[in-house]
């Protein structure tokens, strides 16, 4: 008998596609100094990507005012989708920390960039 398995539908923000699209525009080489020049309340996201020590896995912080009012898990999903679509699934699979932070949240946590 054929057996069909379907994954659970993903729980995403209603504006997920728009968020991913806006994030994808920001990919590219950017130094931290350039990122720091962006104002905290700027509508464009600042993407801070770091390799975990002794590992090839990645930690990604995305500092962006647009995250305000968006659930934490939806932020993570948008970041992962933007990476996967822009840099491919293999690259995206290296990400084990994907945090979307508003500028205020980033400041409270001490995340620079």
């Amino acid at each position: 008998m054929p057996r069909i398995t379907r994954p659970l539908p993903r729980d995403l923000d209603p504006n997920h596609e728009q968020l991913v699209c806006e994030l994808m525009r920001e990919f590219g080489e950017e130094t931290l100094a350039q990122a720091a020049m962006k104002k905290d309340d700027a509508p464009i996201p600042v993407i801070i990507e770091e390799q975990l020590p002794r590992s090839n896995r990645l930690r990604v912080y995305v500092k962006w005012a647009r995250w305000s009012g968006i659930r934490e898990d939806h932020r993570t999903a948008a970041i992962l989708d933007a990476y996967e679509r822009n840099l491919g699934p293999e690259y995206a699979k290296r990400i084990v920390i994907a945090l979307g932070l508003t500028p205020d949240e980033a400041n409270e946590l001490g995340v620079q960039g």
Partner: protein
Amino acid sequence: MRDRLPAHDTIAEFEAARFDRYHDGLILDARGRRLGAMYLLGYFVEMTLKSAFFRLRGFCTDERITGTELKAAAKMAANDLRVSVHPEGYHGLQFWALAIIALRDHIGEPLPRDIALELNWRSQRMNSHWTSSMRYSRDITTPEDWTRLWEDAQWLDSQYDRLVAATTE
């Protein structure tokens, strides 16, 4: 009573006390004392994360954890693990969660990616619903605040063995 308190913290004491604080929180919530309930539940989360971190660091269950060990942990997180978030007086839930994820990689026993990603967003959510200084506030919490923190605390407890187990991806 103070002289009957343990002279210093240990993993064993954290692991015993975390369930006391969890049940204290549930009792307060059932009596409509939500902020107090969330305050205690946050300590359940904090002790769970700290226990996992020090277990991964190789501490024995009765080994003393004082300000010196906490300071060394924060220094290690900043310098060796490159965790750039504040430890918030060693109460930072996000800090401990991110330190655990990085420490697992550092010791060559990376957390499975799905667990790491979920720990990352759940700790972010817990951090947004709890701070040790909330004890100085009147009750401004909502039922949704409690539900989210409780769900995240439940999830964390269900994953505790996986956080500290030597499973390689």
